[in-house]
């Protein structure tokens, strides 16, 4: 590499090496298709990539360190900032991990479970729409971007109506959900669910048989099943390689074993196959949401688990009963003290397997909190995936891995 000299001009993005005929191109970290702050150091022979070295860490905020210095409830809003496209998925993964650590997973009321699942699936739709929009824009289809963002706006309005926030939801609490669904929310959801399938058909009409789209995506970014396993791929990156594994189905949490849905898989292994899966997953999410509406109506109005040692009593009890108030005060100022032990809880976030590993020493602060973010490995795979492809395909491949830098760097 060139040494920096303040007197000489310094070409940050290009390094020519004279001995062999390769050129080193610095892709990012400010590249618009790098989906955040990805720096790729590409060694190229003409247009073809010989070697790729992803460089991450530009968005590192030390979340695991912060987690060790916060009580459990304090950390929950921080998880919003990981995968900021689908914040509820992170909140939920963390809440579930703490619940399993506490052993109160079974005590979460049914209504809270239904609401959580609704929010999760809505977030999956939001995330997939966002992925389609930005991916299509990267590849060059401008109008899809606008259409997708229009529908995403309706979904975000639903989120806003429920929790007041559009991106950083914090809409799940440890032990349940904070609020019941507002008046008329289910009707709005129903309206959205009726509207979305025709819109998905519209996107597919624009893309699926589009000659340019297929030429850019087919046979690009081929991940053989063996490579997907080696790199611990999860979510659509794994199912796009023909391996059927969805944590919602295989290790069901919440009420996923009560609803009926399919796991689409594709053995094409390329970006096009993954695109097809995203479209199908949105349909499956709609299917799940449709089943959840009647399930919600059969539930009792309880929202938070009854576990006075760990979870504050409902507001009404706090305002009327002295002991509940005292407990609430201790839980807010000192925090809950989970039992000594460790737990690793995987969940299926829109990006893949999002897991939290928590080691507790019986203190109100976790002793170690490790976040297993799927995008971390989906970025690592780029160093095996990119060589042999052309520079123009890099954008397609980064797009189809669906990485978000908030959760890679954490």
């Amino acid at each position, binding site marked *: 590499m060139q040494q920096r000299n303040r007197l000489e001009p310094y070409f940050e993005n290009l390094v020519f090496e004279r001995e062999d005929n390769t050129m080193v191109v610095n892709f990012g970290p400010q590249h618009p298709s790098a989906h955040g702050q990805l720096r790729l150091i590409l060694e190229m022979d003409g247009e073809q990539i010989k070697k790729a070295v992803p460089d991450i860490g530009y968005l590192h905020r030390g979340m695991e360190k912060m987690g060790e210095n916060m009580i459990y409830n304090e950390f929950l809003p921080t998880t919003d900032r990981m995968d900021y496209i689908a914040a509820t998925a992170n909140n939920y993964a963390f809440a579930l991990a703490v619940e399993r650590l506490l052993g109160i997973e079974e005590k979460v009321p049914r209504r809270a479970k239904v609401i959580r699942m609704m929010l999760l699936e809505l977030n999956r739709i939001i995330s997939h729409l966002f992925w389609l929009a930005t991916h299509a824009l990267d590849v060059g289809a401008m109008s899809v971007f606008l259409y997708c963002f229009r529908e995403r706006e309706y979904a975000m309005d639903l989120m806003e109506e429920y929790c007041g926030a559009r991106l950083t939801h914090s809409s799940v609490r440890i032990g349940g959900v904070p609020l019941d669904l507002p008046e008329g929310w289910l009707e709005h959801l129903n309206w959205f669910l009726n509207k979305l399938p025709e819109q998905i058909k519209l996107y597919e009409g624009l893309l699926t048989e589009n000659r340019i789209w297929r030429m850019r995506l087919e046979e690009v970014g081929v991940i053989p099943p063996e490579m997907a*396993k080696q790199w611990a791929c999860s979510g659509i990156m794994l199912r796009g390689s023909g391996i059927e594994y969805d944590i919602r189905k295989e290790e069901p949490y919440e009420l996923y074993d009560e609803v009926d849905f399919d796991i689409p898989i594709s053995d094409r292994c390329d970006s096009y196959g993954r695109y097809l899966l995203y479209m199908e997953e949105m349909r499956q999410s709609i299917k799940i949401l449709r089943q959840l509406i009647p399930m919600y109506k059969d539930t009792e109005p309880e929202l938070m688990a009854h576990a006075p040692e760990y979870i504050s009593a409902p507001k009404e009890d706090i305002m009327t009963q002295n002991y509940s108030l005292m407990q609430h005060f201790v839980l807010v100022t000192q925090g809950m003290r989970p039992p000594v032990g460790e737990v690793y809880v*995987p969940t299926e976030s829109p990006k893949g397997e999002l897991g939290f590993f928590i080691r507790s020493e019986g203190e109100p602060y976790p002793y170690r909190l*490790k976040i297993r973010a799927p995008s971390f490995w989906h970025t690592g795979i780029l160093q095996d995936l990119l060589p042999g492809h052309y520079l123009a395909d890099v954008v397609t491949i980064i797009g189809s891995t669906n990485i978000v830098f908030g959760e890679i760097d954490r």
Partner: protein
Amino acid sequence: MRPYRPKDNVQKKSYYTDRFWVAPRIPEEPVEDEIFKADLRTLKKEIKVKKAYIQRGQLVIIIDAKDNVKALQVLKEKCGYDILSEMSAIDYLAQDGEFEIFYQLLAMSKRKRVRVKCRIKEDEAIESVEPLFRSADWSEREMYDMFGIKVNNHPYLKRILMPEDWVGYPLRKTYPLHGDEAAQWYEVDKIFGKEYREIIGPEQRDAAYISTTDTCNFARIYHEVPRCADPNSEPEKIESFNEDAPLVETFDLKKSKIVDKTR
């Protein structure tokens, strides 16, 4: 007297713990699950298993650190644990002078998860499992970056999240949340050089801090100066208020009204 704070763990602590508080423990159940039992039997034939139990539905196996590659190889090739979904370390330097390293494995065909744990001393290195699981490439780099644990035979053991010239290992318990001294001056040292430390001054990290010399963003009550003026200049004299002026100018008894006392 200032309260004693341990230097080997500077993370936040609970400020009050009941004297008689005994933390409950998550039970470590015996291995009775058929699939786990068979896997454990296969593993025990090859290596020495120190302890094995089931916690919250996942098998936890504790082994010697030197057996880590062998153990993972047996689990991968004979028991079908084909995905290394996570690995990292836990800092127990303050308690035992050791790191605990854990490998979180998943067998997709059996839907089972296993956690393999081993302990190493602070100055020891661990053997890389990258030849078995490619995903360990980045996880081991992250572990090295965050804890300073050296990994033998790793293809490219460099820092991954922190800059390459970073000093210290952020996830160790001795590393403060706000960073050590090198972290505080990192940008100044890098961009301007060490000699500029005094000119630029330390970074202000307190969100509630109000500078008394900053007259652009904060007004100094009772010492007001024009906006962005020199903070040492004389405060503005307010001419409009005359202390000798009477508060009530004239009082005319005829114009005033006496309120009925019996109201």
